[in-house]
């Protein structure tokens, strides 16, 4: 099928490309642009490993065609740290609180947590668990992921990074 011209902003950079309409955004990111942070973990839009931030929304990039992202602003895990390498508080907190093991769900999980904390800067534990219900993890049992997000929320709210409340 004839290719379509798209342009989008990815992690702050302007991108122009020609894509087949059926090219999924996740494949466009990973195979064309070599953005390999977001991962593929399922075929049925469940696991969330492919989550990106698109125009201020958490989106599973495996269920969006690249052509639908024409004109959009896309943020992936690769765009979370600052230009000078300073990590986002979420990235720091995930390491501090052992919120990852194999790392495969982590880019999608952090990218989703990023938007979650913009929706709600002081979420309860239940709100965090609901907020990441579209991101599956097989390694951590989620408990330390929740702790990491709570710690990042506290840090970003200006408080000390404190031990997660019992």
């Amino acid at each position, binding site marked *: 099928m*004839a290719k379509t011209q798209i342009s989008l902003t990815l992690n702050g950079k302007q991108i122009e490309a020609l894509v087949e309409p059926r090219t999924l955004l996740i494949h466009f990111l990973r195979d064309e642009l070599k953005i390999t942070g977001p991962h593929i973990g399922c075929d049925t839009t469940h696991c969330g490993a492919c989550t990106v931030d698109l125009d201020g*929304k958490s989106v599973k990039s495996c*269920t969006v065609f690249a052509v639908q992202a024409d004109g959009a602003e896309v943020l992936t895990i690769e765009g979370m740290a600052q230009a000078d390498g300073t990590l986002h508080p979420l990235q720091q907190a995930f390491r501090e609180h052992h919120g990852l093991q194999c790392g495969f769900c982590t880019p999608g999980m952090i990218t989703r947590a990023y938007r979650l904390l913009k929706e709600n800067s002081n979420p309860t534990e239940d709100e965090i668990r609901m907020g990441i219900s579209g991101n599956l993890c097989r390694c951590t049992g989620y408990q330390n992921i929740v702790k990491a997000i709570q710690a990042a929320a506290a840090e970003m709210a200006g408080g000390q990074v404190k031990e997660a409340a019992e």
Partner: protein
Amino acid sequence: MIPGAFAYHRPKSVNEAVALLADLGEDARPLGGGHSLIPLMKLRLAAPSNLVDLGGIADLKGIRADGGDVVVGACVTQHEIIASDLLASKVPLLAEAARQIADPQVRYVGTIGGNVANGDPGNDMPAVMMALNATYELAGKGGGRKVAARDFYHGTYDTALQPGEIVAAIRIPDLGKHGYAYEKLKRKIGDYATAAAAVVLTWDGGKVGQCAIGLTNVADKPLFAEEAGRIVAGSALDDATVKKAVAAAEAITAPASDRRGSPNYRTKMAGVMLSRALARAKSRAG
């Protein structure tokens, strides 16, 4: 995991969209949020030759009051429904149901129009719309028409939509003061319902005024439990009445069997969800 090839169109207006759908024929599909269609395409269970992306059409967005009614554009997302103050005050049932659909990412993209028009008996909104007595405003090349939600569903992937038609908006009548609940039994958050019941009722002087009940995923289409609603209307929601209503609701179910439960279990759960939804709706009816 990889869909078949198609030609992609991104019309800027409803008229352009329905003209395209009519001209491109049966093999063309509208694309709302795509979170029902694209998963099917990835499994190659659907292989449209043309996709008409409705995402750029401003007239399909927006939630507004119109007289006493509320009108929701078909491309409004579940996320926007949850965030809407207007809906929170006038039709809070919608947000309660939306919160139980899928997950945050899918809700950011999935549209109300897609959820009501898809025809998958597992979709949650159809039963909710039946309970709300909503009307779907359809658009087609030949013009627009209206179909009540209660008349819209014929079978699995079989709705009142004619080829080339789309749902453009959903109109919900003024419910006044009412109680509501969407009680959904599921294996995990966001999963398809094992069984679910939507209830809207009014309560006056210790009795139910009107009651409308919709059931999700316990037949090959969403069910409007008209008889059960009639049984409950005018009653004090005493145990005996609820039991009769539950029996009437169970009687119209014909669930599929999958690993969520046997048909008998799902029928019984439709009944349990209904009785819990009635209780919760009553507690909210004020």
